[in-house]
Structure formats: structure tokens, C-alpha cells
């Protein structure tokens, strides 16, 4: 945007082209749905898991290590796993659902417009859960045990301890996980590209996928750059908002 005037005319043309294409708006809507749904899963589930892992029980440290495994898996592994398990003819999920007579005919989870989006959100969240859990667990460990024990002695129940002690102290950490998860989900590209490439019927076409498709398959580099800049500006606004209002370094 701060470049010399030579690029200005072409730049505006690309923005005009992008803003008048319905595919762009569809991708924006998909991206927002994708990010929103993912965030709902990726903030609530790690919180439950982290609260459970913060208790003392036999095998706790082993459970923490094993929990990390999905996070270190390469995206390609997740994509292949998903394609194999969800495959209509050879996949385990369809096989099980048929055997239990929950469905009569195999479902092509990644090939149907009704299910592809949700299937991918779940797989994506499967991979992010360990990281979110780890961060929230780190936050939980900064809460001194004696505070919780004192509350317990004073007769505070599980819910009260969570509502009045853990949750307020955990606020900054949840904000941090929110920010990282927001950015990470909004920018998800590899998993979608390796499974549906944005299909079926563009239902999983998020903004990063559209940008990538335009730049590397359609060789419309200018349009891709225009869309990328718009996405960056949107994300920068979220980032500035986060660092201005939610960022607190717990000491």
C-alpha cells in the first residue's frame, strides 16, 4: 500500500475485481464460519481437559505427554487419516455406522456439501486441542494451590472455585489462546488443500484456500495479493485489538 505510484492503478483494479466477485464474499463467509466454529470447540474442550489434567492422579504426566501426539503430527498425516477413516467404501467410520445400522448407505463425508465443512473443522480441532490444552494448563499452574485449598476449606464447591477463582485468574490465558487459535484457524490452508481443495461446491473454500488457488492454480497473482492484503488488514485489526485490550502479561 505504501509502494510507489506505478503500482497504484493496477492495485485498485485488482481490489475492484476482488470486491466484485461473489466467490470472494463466499470465502469470507466460509472463513468466518470456519473460525467461529473452530474457536467454539477449541476454547471449550481444552479448558475441560486442562482442568482434568491439573488434578493429581496416577499416570498424569504420561497422559500429558500422550495428549501432545496429535499436535506434533504433520498436516499430511492428519489429511490422510481423515481421508482414510471417512472414505465411503474402505473407511472405518462408514463401516462402523453401517454395521450398527445407524445409516443404510455409506456417506461420503468429505464429498458431500452437508458434511465436508464440519468434518474438516473437527479434524482441524483434533490437531489444535493439545496446544490449547497445554497453554491453559500452563495458566492453571500459575494459580497457587493454597488459594484453592483455602477456598475449599471455606466450603467453596467445585463450581464456585471455578467461577470465582480459576476463571478470573485464567482470563489473560484464555485471551491468549483465543488470539493464537483465531489466527491459526483463520489461516488454515494445508489441511483443506490436501483434502477437499475448497470443494464440494466451494463449501470449504476459505479465504486462504481461495488466495492459494488464485495465486498458484489460476496464476492471478494480483487478485491473490489483493485478497491477501484485505485478509491481513482484517487480522491486523484483530491483533491490535487483542494487544491493546486483552493482552496482559501474567506476572
Amino acid at each position, binding site marked *: 500500500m505504501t509502494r510507489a505510484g506505478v503500482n497504484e492503478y493496477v492495485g485498485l483494479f485488482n481490489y475492484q475485481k476482488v470486491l466484485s466477485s461473489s466467490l470472494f464474499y463466499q470465502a469470507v463467509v466460509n472463513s468466518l464460519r470456519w473460525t467461529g466454529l473452530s474457536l467454539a470447540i477449541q476454547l471449550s474442550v481444552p479448558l*475441560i*481437559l486442562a482442568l*482434568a489434567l491439573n488434578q493429581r*492422579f496416577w499416570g498424569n*504426566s504420561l*497422559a500429558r*505427554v500422550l*495428549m*501432545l*501426539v*496429535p*499436535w*506434533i*503430527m*504433520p*498436516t*499430511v*498425516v492428519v*489429511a*490422510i*487419516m481423515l*481421508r*482414510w477413516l471417512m472414505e465411503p*467404501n*474402505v473407511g*472405518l467410520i462408514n463401516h462402523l455406522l453401517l454395521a450398527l445400522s445407524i445409516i443404510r448407505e455409506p456417506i461420503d463425508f468429505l464429498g458431500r456439501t452437508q458434511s465436508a465443512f464440519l468434518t474438516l473443522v473437527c479434524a482441524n480441532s483434533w490437531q489444535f*486441542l493439545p496446544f490449547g490444552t*497445554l*497453554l491453559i*494448563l*500452563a495458566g492453571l*499452574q*500459575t494459580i497457587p494451590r493454597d488459594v484453592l485449598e483455602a477456598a475449599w476449606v471455606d466450603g467453596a464447591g467445585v463450581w464456585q472455585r471455578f467461577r470465582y477463582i480459576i476463571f478470573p485468574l485464567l482470563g489473560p*490465558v484464555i485471551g491468549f489462546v483465543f*488470539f*493464537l487459535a483465531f*489466527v491459526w484457524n*483463520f*489461516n488454515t*490452508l*494445508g489441511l483443506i488443500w*490436501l483434502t477437499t481443495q475448497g470443494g464440494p461446491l466451494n463449501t470449504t473454500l476459505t*479465504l*486462504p*484456500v481461495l*488466495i*492459494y488457488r488464485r*495465486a498458484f492454480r489460476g496464476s492471478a497473482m494480483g487478485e*491473490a*495479493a489483493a485478497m491477501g*492484503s484485505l*485478509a*491481513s488488514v482484517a*487480522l*491486523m485489526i*484483530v*491483533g491490535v485489538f487483542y*494487544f491493546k485490550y486483552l*493482552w496482559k502479561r*501474567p506476572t
Partner: protein
Amino acid sequence: MTRFPMIRKTLGRCLIIGIVLLFLFIALFPLFWIFIGSLHPTADLLQARVTFPPAHITLDHYQTLFHAQYGVKLFVRYIKNSLMVGLSVACLTIAIAGLGAYGLSRYRFWGSETMSRIMLFVYVFPQSLILVPIYVLLAHFRLIDSHFGLIITHTALVAPFCTWLLRSFFEAIPRELEEAAAVEGANWLQILIHVLLPLASPGVVTAGIYALVVSWGEYMFAVNLLMSGAKWTVPAGLATYMTEQAIEWGQLLAGTVLTAVPILIIFLPFAKYFLRGFLEGALK
């Protein structure tokens, strides 16, 4: 219920362990099933007759992957490439992030706080956006289709987060130790290498493992920056098995296992360090 605190406590404990076991099952079962699947003959795979324990165990799929009949598709080669790239990225990241974190934690200068925030802020830019400029930039230096180009790209991807992580470790180290070393006549680089880095070793291990994990799994840059099949890293190589017309499930699953196992072998021995480093450093 409140009249029986013991029962209540036991119930709570069972619930907690139940939750953890459920999550571990969801986290691990799909990967376990891929491993089991990779041992099945193609005929069984195509009829979804995957069982545990397998009815017929075969290592054919692994053998096919290891033999040279596919020309450039040499899986061993991919693994070597990935290890080489990943370890280089880890070392380079520690060097760069160590220096950066040292500067940010020990010198207060105008904008230093803003700068450490920007460390995380850079992650807002989508990969699909930076792919093109990085490609153009590397092309200028004739670093397309070279491992070095991929190494510096991966380092650029992970270094900000690692700098931010190491910074909190450095800040926890008392300055008196450095002052003592300075009195002994050590310069800043010696202080960094001999005092700070050893004391922050959980952080250094965490940063290195993080860099290695990200580099090992990174697909989008690897596949676009490396042209020749012989230079591919594991994700780039493995993905080609997926895009073919009729998927050879056996080979694909065996390849997936071979992609997952090396990083697990590297990661698991350090996992405890990594956890500790992360839990101590991530939020301070």
C-alpha cells in the same frame, strides 16, 4: 451427597480419569488404526476388513516404499532430507532466537516492548499470502529448489515464537550471575553461551523441538519451494501418493506411519523437557 465426602471424591476422581481417557482415545486411536491398517494386505484394506489383531500381517507396503522401483520416489531419501532440514532449522532457530531473546530481555531500548509483541503479531499474516513474496525473494538469490532456501524459510516461520519463549526464560535468570561473569572478564557473547543458554536449557530444548516439529510437518512451503523429487521432504513426498488417480491405500498408510514415527522417536524422549519448558515459559 455432601454427607459422604469420600464417595463424592471418588466419583470426582473417576470422572476426571474418564475425561482424560476419552480424550486420549480420541487423540491416539486414529493414529493407532493407521498403523494397524498399514500391516493389512491390499485386499483386506479395500473391503474395510481392518481388524485388531490383523488377520494377515504383511510388510509388503513398507517394502514397496523402500525399494527403488518408483524412480525418484525414495522414501528413505525423503526422511533423510526432512531430518537434515529439520535439524538445521532447529540449530539456526536456537542461534537466532537466542540472540534475539537476549537482546529483548537484557536491553531496554525504545520500542523493545512493542518489538516483543510484534514477535507474535507476525503470525497474523496468512501463509498463502507470504508464499508468493518468499518465492520471489528466494528466486532472486537462486535459492528455489535448494534445501538452504527451505531451511531459512522454516526458520523465519518459527523464530518469532521461539524468541518470545526464550525471552521469558532469560528474564527468570538473575542478573547477578551475568554481572559476576562480566567481572571475570567475559564479553556478552560468552555470557550468552556459557551462562544464559545453559541456565535456560529447558527453554532451549523446547524451542529446538518446536522448530523441528514445525519444520518436519510443514507442507505448503516445501511443496512450492522444492521442485525436484529427490529433494523433497517427507510431507511433500507423501502427498504425491494421495493425488494419484487410484489411491494405493496400503502404501499411503505405510508412508503415513513412516512420516509419523521419526518425529515421535525424536519428540517423545524430550517430551517431559518440552512440557516443562512450555509450562514454565509460555505465559511468563
